[in-house]
């Protein structure tokens, strides 16, 4: 045992060292790829390259670099479209051998969150309806379940079977184009739904940030910790959050569901409130209930002023000052 153990240890040590070095190499390679790509797609680089090319028309450098440059330029252009228009389309081929219409139209929706990052893109893949070459229907999508794609589809991409029935029942002239499919409106409405959802989430996170917030992983749970830890349903990796002690006395501020339409507030003294955010970021409704019934004055403060969600805390502060 004594003779075999030291080499084993050394082996393990070496193995772990090798693994860490490999990891480092991968990290550096990734970084290099990233830097090379940013360099290739930068405007300055393009300008300099053109100058260089105009000076010396045919060089070996060009043959080597130009495909890369072209790819990078193309990619940068695509990205510019995505940033500028937010909704872009792309073709996609359904790999299923049994599909009757394997050519799909993909719609990609990019939403920019308040931290300047783009969220994971949302996709809708549309398929031609069999027999009706001009009509589309949603084949697959990655829209969260609380936004009903079926409803949007019914409203903006009606299928002929449904519309025929309707046409037979109500021959109203103002509903004449009810069975026309309107893809731009479908995408616009869908994007709007996604964008207002992200704005609502941003508003909640903004309010939390203003109050001060602590985060922790669910795993790092230890007893003897005081305060209210609430699971943050807005974060992807299960986190619990707790608000810092603040002079407004708010101990918790969290959306009631993932769609973040309703936000639940909880005060130190046991009062519980709920506000409804509109799509425009206005506090539409507010209810506050304490131990002795509803707190109408606080409700008025929540919905009062300019009604903006972002200024709710300022209004609460103003409300608090004259009392004390």
């Amino acid at each position, binding site marked *: 045992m004594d003779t075999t153990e030291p080499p084993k240890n050394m082996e393990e040590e070496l193995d772990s060292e090798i693994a860490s070095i490999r990891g480092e190499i991968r990290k550096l390679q990734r970084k290099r790829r990233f830097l090379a790509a940013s360099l290739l797609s930068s405007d300055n680089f393009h300008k300099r390259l053109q100058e260089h090319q105009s000076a010396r028309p045919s060089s070996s450098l060009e043959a080597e670099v130009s495909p890369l440059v072209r790819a990078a330029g193309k*990619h940068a252009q695509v990205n510019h479209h995505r940033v500028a228009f937010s909704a872009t389309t792309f073709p996609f081929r359904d790999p299923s051998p049994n599909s009757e219409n394997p050519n799909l139209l993909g719609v990609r929706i990019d939403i920019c969150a308040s931290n300047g990052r783009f969220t994971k893109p949302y996709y809708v893949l549309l398929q031609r309806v069999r027999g009706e070459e001009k009509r589309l229907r949603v084949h697959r999508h990655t*829209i969260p*379940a609380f936004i009903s794609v079926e409803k949007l589809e019914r409203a903006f991409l009606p299928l002929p079977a449904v519309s025929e029935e309707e046409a037979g029942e109500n021959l109203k002239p103002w509903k004449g184009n009810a069975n026309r499919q309107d893809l731009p409106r479908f995408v616009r409405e869908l994007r709007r739904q996604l964008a207002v959802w992200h704005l609502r989430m941003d508003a909640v996170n903004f309010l939390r940030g203003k109050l001060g917030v602590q985060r922790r992983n669910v795993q790092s749970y230890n007893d003897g910790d005081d305060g209210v830890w609430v699971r943050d349903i807005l974060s992807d990796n299960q986190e619990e959050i707790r608000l810092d002690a603040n002079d407004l006395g708010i101990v918790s501020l969290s959306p009631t569901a993932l769609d973040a339409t309703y936000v639940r507030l909880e005060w130190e003294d046991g009062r519980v409130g709920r506000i409804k955010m509109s799509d425009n970021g206005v506090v539409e409704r507010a209810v506050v209930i304490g131990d002795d019934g509803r707190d109408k004055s606080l409700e008025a403060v929540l919905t009062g002023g300019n009604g903006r969600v972002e200024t709710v805390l300022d209004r609460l502060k103003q409300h608090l000052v004259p009392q004390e």
Partner: protein
Amino acid sequence: MARPKTVRAPTAASLPSNLRIPSTTPSLVKSFGKLTRQALLDLVFYWLDDRNVQSFEPYLERDEAEGADDEELGPYPAERTIDDVRNAYQELQVRKGGKREVIDRILEGDWRHGITLRQLAMVDLRYMDDHPSSLRWTALELTRIDADGAQLAETDVSSYIPRIHASTFLSNIQQQISPLVKAHYYLARSNTLPLTFLRIFVTNSPYQHPRQPPETLTDASRVIHVAFPDSCPFVYTSIASSTGSKASVNAVATDARSLQRIVRDAVPKALSLPQRRYALKATSLTAKNLQALLALRGPGRSNGANGAFSIFADAVVEGSPLDPRPAYTVSPEELLNQARPGNNKNQTTEDQTESETHGSGKKTRNSEDIHIPKKRKLAIYSRFGTSGHLSSAPLDRLDVRLLDRPDGDEHDEDSDTDQTQPSLSLTFAGSDVISGIRRLAELGVVDPEKMPSWMTGEEAVSVAVVHRGQRVIKDSG
């Protein structure tokens, strides 16, 4: 329990949470024994917590004085105060040992006067938290019924997600069920998953304090679980294990299946509000793993994009619009990691797979002589996407009925011979069927290019009827 035992009137109230099951009931040992020692101790500490101890009072010395008739001393003398009880379990916490001593201490010592239904429900749910695939769950979709079938103005495009107020919902469901069955309800939040569990225990006695053998109070086949995932219009119900309960001979309404049907019918009614009625619709998905249900019928992105389309659900096709790297130079694993920055645990393994896949991807692009495995690999990637590889929704069972003629001879006019049409039923079972099929494709058993899309899990169902490779959706659902 100063209740006069002579008065026993049938009521419509639910079974009280503090109804005690005698601790001597042998099946209690079994129920408790499912948990680990640590889980048991956690539960005991929760019961003895200052906020909760009112509902879970342990047996103390003063209880002994009241009922002075028990002469024989048990192995666990009654403690004087609740703090003493806590200390006793703290001691067990520090000491290493089997779980049997904890169970004995609970049943013969501190809760010798009985385990309440609520405690039993907590034990049950704790087990479910620790073992998320201990039951089979069926996903049902909540849909709204309009009174006159008229299309409402489509201004509100959000899904029909009812807001559940726990006590209102429970009193509603109690109203629905109580004329038919007597039940005990326990509503709890899952510790690990974004779910709320409702545990319903049903008996066939109309009495508040049933005079049945205590065994029936711990009968697992009389328990129905309903889970409400967050922010999505779905409900999951457990299928009671079909171990024939003895009560099935007594009355029609008390066997597990019909009780389950009653509860299932009651759930949408209890969720409904005036002018806002809901119905449950089957979604052909049953699985043991709650994670799989959450992935396929949950709040996230992957409900409508699986199989080949899982690359979109995981957003591994392209990076963000601010990423300067062209999409083909970035491996899907890297994009996936980028999206989840907090995920460092699997970093090393993912890195390894990444380097492998990345290397192979480069070769296929550069060299024209494609080995069959490489080609197959690409085909597998295009068919399965990331499902069964990076993201997975493990189905434990996949039932498929094929309506195609086995000889491949397809005539459209044989629609009138529907009665005699042969059909072939296939059942896949295992811990994760879809990744199993992916593995078969990797081994060359399944042709990844010719296989129909239901084999890639694209349909996100566990029961399907297939005709010419495409799922046939029945009108009845």
